[in-house]
């Protein structure tokens, strides 16, 4: 029964160790340089492997199917549950068993490039005629010591979603979302005032670091402030703009305008209540527009800051690179070259209502059919939008019980005067 757990854990350790021992040689030395075969790489019927995490399953499947249908190379896709992804990549990296291509949550990319998990793609990317149009947030996150390792795979942007039906009911303009933080609060309170037991003003992941990195950082950026300094070595999350964000949520909590369960929400179900039509307005992942639109009449706008402006978004999602263990680098580059081409960006991603990763394709023929998608694409390229870069990002922000989770819970639910101490704890993890 339960007492087997330790031996199982030890067994896992054993496996990793033996694999690490076998993988010491590494294959990087023998593989051909990805840029050697020109801008398109090699399409010779090779079998390529690709790993990604479950939240991007639908986009990854669409991309791989389209690639396999039009190329001799065949990509075999493996989807890994979100929470297991880092562990799986870590074990494979130690044993030299990484797939040819693998995607990574863009906030973990700096750590992984530093650990040398990817092939250098600087020359290959340089050969692309549209290199400068590729989403710079992702490219920057994938740059280590001046070398580029990663391209955008799927963009996931945070935007404000509001429920038009509830806005109408609450006497708000259903076509106009919040343009400032204060308006966001007003709108949420107005929906709350409907007094319906199953409907609330807003919702958030009160015990989820990743959710609030994704949704609160843009509020700070849109207010003209930054969240970190010293290349991600120092936290600025005690600044005036950040405090305004915390105050907004604390007020909403005090007014009872946040749907129940927010305090315990670890992120597993933070998007569910809106899709059930139970939430008026909240920051939300743009990739779920199609899903949410099935059940709710959704309005979309950029995440606002303290004062009205263009708004901001967290340019999240996954970057993709060729692994250090791949021996089919030129074939793998063929996939990446295609991935950033118009054929993939417009005819696969945009066609499925996903955001494109190239600024020159923002107004593509699918996007213009739905003004909400144009809004999302334009926000991605807005000057206040960012992909934050920090080597210790996961430990500082995303991990359960991270110092960021402590900070935000104190700000919304606990003793708000602990901000300076909490922020120092955050900096001490970032600076490690």
């Amino acid at each position, binding site marked *: *029964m*339960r*007492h087997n*757990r*330790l*031996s199982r*854990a*030890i*067994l896992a*350790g*054993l496996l*990793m*160790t*033996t694999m*690490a021992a076998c*993988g*010491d040689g590494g294959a990087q030395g023998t593989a051909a340089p990805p840029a050697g075969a020109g801008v398109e790489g090699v399409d010779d019927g090779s079998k390529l492997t690709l790993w990604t995490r479950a939240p991007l399953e639908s986009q990854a499947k669409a991309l791989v199917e389209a690639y396999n249908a039009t190329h001799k190379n065949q990509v075999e896709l493996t989807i890994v549950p979100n929470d297991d992804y*880092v*562990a799986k*990549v*870590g*074990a494979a*990296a*130690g044993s030299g068993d990484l797939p040819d291509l693998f995607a990574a949550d863009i906030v973990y990319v700096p*750590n*992984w490039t530093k*650990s*040398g*998990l990817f092939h250098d793609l600087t020359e290959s990317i340089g050969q692309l005629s549209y290199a400068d149009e590729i989403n710079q947030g992702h490219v920057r996150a994938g740059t280590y010591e001046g070398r580029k390792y990663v391209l955008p795979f799927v963009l996931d942007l945070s935007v404000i979603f509001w429920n038009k039906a509830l806005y109408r009911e609450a006497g708000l303009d259903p076509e106009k979302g919040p343009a400032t933080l204060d308006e966001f609060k007003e709108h949420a309170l107005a929906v709350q005032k409907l007094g319906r037991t199953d409907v609330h003003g807003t919702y958030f992941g009160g*015990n989820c670091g990743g959710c609030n990195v994704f949704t609160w950082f843009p509020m700070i950026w849109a207010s003209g402030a930054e969240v970190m300094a010293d290349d991600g070595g120092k936290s600025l999350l005690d600044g005036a703009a950040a405090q305004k964000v915390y105050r907004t949520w604390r007020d909403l909590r005090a007014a009872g305008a946040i749907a*129940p*369960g927010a*305090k*315990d929400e*670890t992120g597993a*179900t933070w998007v*569910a*209540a809106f899709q059930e039509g139970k939430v008026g307005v909240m920051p939300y992942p743009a990739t779920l527009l199609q899903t949410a639109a099935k059940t709710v009449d959704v309005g979309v706008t950029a995440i606002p800051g303290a004062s009205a402006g263009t708004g901001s978004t967290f340019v999240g999602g996954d970057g993709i690179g060729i692994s250090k263990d791949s021996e089919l680098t030129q074939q793998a580059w063929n996939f990446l070259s295609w991935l950033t081409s118009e054929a993939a960006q417009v005819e696969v991603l945009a066609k499925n209502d996903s955001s494109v990763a190239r600024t020159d394709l923002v107004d593509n023929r699918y996007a213009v059919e739905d003004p909400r998608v144009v809004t999302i694409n334009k926000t991605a390229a807005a000057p206040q939008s960012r992909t934050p870069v920090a080597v*210790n990002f*996961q*430990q*500082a922000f*995303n*991990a*359960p*019980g*991270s110092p960021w*989770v*402590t900070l935000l*819970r104190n700000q919304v639910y*606990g003793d708000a005067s602990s901000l300076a101490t909490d922020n120092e*704890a955050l900096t001490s993890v970032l600076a490690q």
Partner: protein
Amino acid sequence: MTTSLTGTEERRAPAVHREVVRKRRGPRLTGWAYAAPTALFVLIFFVVPTVLVARMSVSDWNLFAGDRGYNAPENFTAAVQNRLFWPAVGFTVKYTLVTTVILLVLALGLALLVQESSRWSGFLRTAFLVPSALGLASASLLFYALYSPQSSPLGFLGISFLGTPAGALWSTVVLIVWRFAGFYMLLLLVGLQGISGDVYEAARLDGATRWQTFRYVTLPLLRSSLALCTILCVTGSMLAFDQFYLLTKGGPDNSTITIVQLVYNLAFQGANDLGRAAALSILILGALLVVNLVQFRGLRGREN
């Protein structure tokens, strides 16, 4: 027919004799042969991994970067100085005490309830045992749905099951009790049914009350079963992981982080430091050895 039967018996006799002789000649060898499969398993699945974890614990070993050389005792000091180490130890001990006491008392009560054959005992035994057939992870998910305000049918109670440190602890304890009470009941039931009816009859003849019978007959004779349950329960609780990983992720505010969860966090959730995680695993292994040794000692002392 008769002749042939006799013939077979005559022929078999010397063969049996030979076997006895062989057994006498190599009893040690045969013994080793019997033990070999288990020994092999213990070697492959326990000794070798332990040695490797021990090596990891004295090395600078990152999840992605691999082994970067000897650095003892840095991993151990870093693991103990981790801001969550002492809270995790404290919580694990508290959780172990709470679950062990509740589980054993309840399991004993259930076992006493269903030991007599009555019309309902078969039904009751099955009902108590059914949760044990469910995997702990599935049971945790089931309870997550039960506790989550978004899906809970218990919303009318107005309780935040996982939102406060005490709520999260007791909600998890309820899950564990539900999941394991039947299993420990079964173990104690076997012990109870091993007690001969004669002793009870003697106690009755001596005019013992119900409580006296329980206190001076049942409990002492059930000692070895109770000891087995305690050891299983304490060990299992000290290594608790799945239920907290699924239900609380250590929250709220890091109030339900167990020591094994800390190992997992160090290895895979941010720090990505296998060396420190291994150091912590070695410390847990040591603590478990001590606890089990003390329990065995106490048990043997009382029996003598």
